[in-house]
């Protein structure tokens, strides 16, 4: 399986184990997130909501492309791909 990196924002890193980059082995964007949750199970509830979708104010990128919907989550990863979870610019105060 391709080796990839999942990058997470500071708020999630601080309730994880402090790392902001977590190496994973995964074939798709969705699998990379599942690998993240196996390593840090407390993060699942903060990325996905009760509908099973990425939270409305969370962004997921596959390299530089938005990847939050189901089709993009199923997109294959190349070796060295970077999946980035971001705090969206919406939703804050």
């Amino acid at each position, binding site marked *: 399986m391709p080796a990839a990196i999942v990058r997470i924002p500071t708020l999630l890193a601080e309730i994880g184990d402090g790392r902001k980059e977590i190496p994973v082995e995964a074939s798709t964007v969705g699998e990379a997130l599942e690998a993240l949750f196996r390593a840090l*199970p407390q993060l699942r509830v903060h*990325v996905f909501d*009760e509908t099973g979708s990425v939270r409305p104010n*969370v962004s997921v990128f596959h390299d530089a492309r938005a990847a939050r919907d189901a089709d993009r989550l199923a997109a294959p990863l190349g070796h060295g791909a970077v999946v980035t979870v971001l705090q969206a610019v919406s*939703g804050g105060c």
Partner: protein
Amino acid sequence: MTTIGIGTVKGAFFLRANGSGWDLEGPTFKGWAVTTFGRAPSGDHLLATGSNWFGAAIHRSRDLGEWEQIVDGPAWPEGGDRKLNNVWTIATNGDATYAAVDQAGLFRSEDDGASWQPVDAFNEHPTRPGWQPGFGGLAAHRLLFAPNDANRMWLGVSAVGVFRTEDGGDSWQLVNKGITKPGPEGDDGEIGYCVHCLVADPDDPDTIWRQEHTGVYRTSDGGDSWERIEEGLPARFGFPIARDAASGALFVVPLESDEHRMPVGGEFRVYRSTDRGDSWHVSGEGHPGEPVYAGVLRDAVATDGRGGVYLGTTAGSINFTTDGGDHWTALPQVLPRILSVGVLES
């Protein structure tokens, strides 16, 4: 050593008494809203975080220093239409710990907070299809226990009303007779009340005081009937109501009307009743001499049972008394908007 937890929209702070004053530590969970504090039956500290981006969760600590998120925390079923937006109350009664949440729900843990199950009789109450959110959301938020009967509990829900169970949560009845609804007159339905806060007398659990959207009320029969108790108050509206167990004094922070929601005339005053709510007066000395247009939210008052009353404002300031409200002191620090205050060690 007394430790006061201050939950703000941007993290938790801890005030520790140092003999002559207070040391401020934090923020912990920087960037997260800290919505409430609680204890597990083991004595572990619990607190709830929330975020407009990343949702809500409960965390555990033995020492208020190292925290670990509870992975199997309260959660609505995946695939449903309910969302867990915030955890507003964590309360332990014997071996059971409860979490009251937005969207309105009640969850129970019987393993020291490690896993949580829905209290279905409340969450699927027959009136639920008619429940509507208030400005702050559709939130279950205040839970009272009868010290002499583990089966009796009261739960406040905005903007629905107060529920009572007599059988440990297997069934829930609405108990709001005598309360004025915030909506138009003529609505005689059994829901639509907007309870902001509840506090009880542990020696007489059928006596409960209630800060409601529409005023301040008291029941002496466990909620079967309520009466207004507003003599001396400059306004009926407010969010918290608290009781000092040492003196029995009650405290409210009146705000000018539900439309304005600020201290009347900018005079920030904590009002106290020393006659079980029959009358109210400005509590002691030490209130701000300059105008303050900040309020105090529902969970942002805590008491230590020894005359200590600690409150945090929406402007991030902290006021406290250690003598049951005779003298108030404001701390110099200014924090983010304060959502919750807890006496964590006393």
